[in-house]
């Protein structure tokens, strides 16, 4: 008669979950194994296969309740992964861009006229944004580990998603600001070097990708499974 009751339960559970595909697959594999083990144990105690599967599923818990607990952990895992990406990628991306600029365009002082103070302020703020966003992501990761057992998982996931969205938002604003400021000052500088234009395009692709990851973090943390 197969494992119809278990299959139905696992399918229903899986349909309610959102997160990294691998994490969801791992949780569902563990669930299926656990239900199969419980069924074997109940068959050993004299129940029919059908009764044993139904008992195993009943003991495992109502699918809605279990899905909510699973979802909280999936959301934290997704948030953690996103924060790790932010902590690593943001400073690397910024350093790579700055190194390229120094190599291909040269320091700002090499321009005919020194950019005005307001422009340098925006440039400096943009330089710092990636570092600060990366640092905040790192601190959140450490706090998340320390508070893992003290704080509700769902709340931790929401905090992680909030930090990720804010960090990406700050980097996005920093980049938009420097582009607008440069366009205002001398629009030709934006297309001064083809390799740097390509580097800028890659930077924007990475920012958008990180933004999508951060938005999915929030979705995972707020979905009602």
């Amino acid at each position, binding site marked *: 008669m197969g494992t119809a009751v278990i299959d139905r339960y696992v399918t229903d559970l899986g349909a309610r979950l959102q997160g990294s595909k691998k994490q969801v697959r*791992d*949780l569902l*594999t*563990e*669930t299926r*194994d*656990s239900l199969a*083990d*419980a069924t074997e*144990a109940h068959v050993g105690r004299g129940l029919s296969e059908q009764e044993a599967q139904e008992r195993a599923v009943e*003991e*495992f*818990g*109502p699918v809605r*309740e*279990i899905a909510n*607990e*699973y979802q*909280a*952990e999936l959301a*934290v*895992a997704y948030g*953690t992964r996103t924060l790790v990406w932010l902590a690593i990628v943001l400073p690397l991306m910024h350093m790579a861009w700055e190194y390229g600029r120094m190599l291909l365009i040269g320091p700002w002082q090499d321009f005919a006229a020194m950019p005005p103070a307001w422009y340098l302020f925006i440039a400096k703020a943009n330089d710092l944004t990636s570092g600060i966003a990366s640092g905040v992501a790192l601190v959140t990761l450490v706090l*998340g*580990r320390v508070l*893992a*057992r003290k704080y509700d*998982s769902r709340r931790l996931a929401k905090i992680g998603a909030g930090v990720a969205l804010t960090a990406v938002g700050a980097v996005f604003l920093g980049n938009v600001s420097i582009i607008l400021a440069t366009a205002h000052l001398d629009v030709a500088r934006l297309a001064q070097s083809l390799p740097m234009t390509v580097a800028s395009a890659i930077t924007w692709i990475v920012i958008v990708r990180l933004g999508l990851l951060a938005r999915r973090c929030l979705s995972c943390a707020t979905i009602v499974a």
Partner: protein
Amino acid sequence: MKPDALRGHLDALLLATLDGKQLHGYAIIEALQQGSGGALDLPTGTVYPALRRLERAGHVTSDWSTVGGRKRRTYKLTQAGQRALNAERSAWREFTTVIDGVLGGGKWAQQ
């Protein structure tokens, strides 16, 4: 024993179950039920998110390995988990000593 009463202690119970052992999920559930003489009445599905939480806290590690011919995720305590378990045991002993000192002498407690 009611699930709500157990939830606050689930982490400690899982750490104690894994003390000196490497077990897969269902073996942990069986050990919990056997250790309590069947009195622990918790939806077994709540054990897996709790194990993930302990892993996130660095108190357990997990590996996929083949047990009984099937590929399973097995869990074991880390050094930090061992320290956390020792702290949980001390806190529990202190708690029960204090509560027992007050409630233990009551008439109803003897019945």
